[in-house]
């Protein structure tokens, strides 16, 4: 492990995620979740202000 690391090992085939079929959809879920939380927090503050 004392040698430079680049180039070690072959590129492994990309496994699909266990839900939603593709990684792109899972990433979109995380980002949509964030957008949802921002909207929720914004209105939460406005409703109780």
């Amino acid at each position: 492990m004392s040698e430079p690391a680049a180039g070690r090992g072959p590129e492994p085939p990309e496994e699909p995620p266990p839900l939603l079929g593709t990684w792109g959809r899972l990433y979109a879920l995380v980002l949509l979740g964030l957008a949802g939380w921002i909207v929720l927090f914004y209105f939460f503050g406005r409703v109780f202000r």
Partner: protein
Amino acid sequence: MSGWDWLVLGASLAFIVAYGVWKGRASRDLDGYLLAGRQMRWHVVALSIMATQASAITFLSTPGQAFTDGMRFVQFYLGLPIAMVILAATAVPIYHRLKVYTAYEYLEGRFDLKTRALAALLFLIQRGLATGLTIFAPALVLSVLLGWNLYWTNLLIGGLVIIYTAWGGAKAVSWTQFQQMLIITGGMAAAGVVVVVLLPDYVSIGGALRVAGELGRLNAIDFSFDLTNRYNFWSGILGGCFLALAYFGTDQSQVGRYLTGRSVTHSRLGLLANGLIKVPMQFLILLMGVFVFAFYQFHPPPLSFNPVAAQQARSGPAGESYRALEREHAMSFASQRAAADRYVAAREAGDAAAVAAARSDLHRAEAAAADVRARSARIIESSGGTAGDANYVFLNFVIHHLPVGLVGLVLAAIFAASMSSTAAELNALTATTMVDIYRRLLRRAPDAAAEVRLSRWITVAWGALAVFFAEFASRLGTLVEAVNILGSLFYGTILGIFLVAFYVKRVRGAAVFYAALIAEAAVIACWLFTPISFLWYNVVGCLLVMGLALLFQRTGTDPLPVAP
């Protein structure tokens, strides 16, 4: 603390240490010791990532921040899910493909040895100091509120962590973090339920939130753009994203967590689960602080939540003035409570005129209470104490208002949080020292068993250094901010190095190395000489490294070939 509380606390700590030692008993080589044999499933990786980031400071200081400053701190975490997606898509496959032990190993293949050594060194300095703070912060609060000796509390937390981390390595760290997160969740959920139950019968959850909202504590999202405003939407999304990219993508205490995943899929899922859960989790912790704030609108709060500072002020030269302020504070609370009662009743009745009148009374009472607190803070400071008491609000509430047994559970949660972060940090410091410094620079290659033995001693040494630093850390303002400011001084530069490595293939080692040195000097200058808020240091450091590296490469003299 009652006997039951001691029993709950003692049993929890004994279980964690014994479980960690047992789980980590089979590490026979560096792969097992530093990366748990790369065999962890995604849910263990996810909880390990969360437990590493959420130190005791998170649980002690965050509710206090909501109490004093409202919920705007949640914006600090808005960039985190974006960073999780970027890292899952880019960094995770690279680290897995190269089978690295540390993030810095990758830099040598991409650039050169000196860039790898610089990044590793910046990490060791920053994380070596921050680990001391991770131990010191809860020890300070516990020692002040429970009358424990600070030095022995530091030693207790540090000593327990060193035992199982040194013995069991990454496997012990990951598995104990799983258990620790369960204890933390249980303790915090119990405290959250109790604070709501303790509100007066006539105050509903909505009523409590309306009072808190009226007094500016529900300011979760602020879209105004201001570089000197520490927490707003833009600093959170941009600065927070850069900070999270740096922390999760280049800080070995986090990289080491998801490198324990058994495949790219498990590491990615661990990061993405964190991206989904972290923001609402922080929101709930802040919301608990808001409920503590609402609770103290109806129950008398102490003038200072730090009993040691208050006692120092009472017995100091201005003691009589402080006692007079305490009496004034009690009267001010009476009018504050009456105004809060009127406000809740008016809102329940839907009487707009009464709401307007009560609102004005509520703000007047809040201003009067703030004035008393400001004057008391000056007396506390003049008597040698620390005026800020945000770190003490939550635990003060827990100790004085939670039922027997639950106090022990919340204390166990705080210990667990401190131990989980510290353990991951010690494991990362050991991995970097062993792989990037000892093996690489000293060019030693002893047998596997000797390497594990040496790694154990390195863990003990870093642990001892962290405890030593913890003994000397004090007067740091709000502790959670102190840790984040320290991180932000270095993260931007490290992130810049990694972003150039990942995405700007034509830049070579010498260009990025000198760019990093200049960027780090500029970030430190920003901290010392400008009012720019610390989250922007990450952006400044990162962009400077990238810009200067490109400039140096274009005009430069680096003769090294581009790595394949």
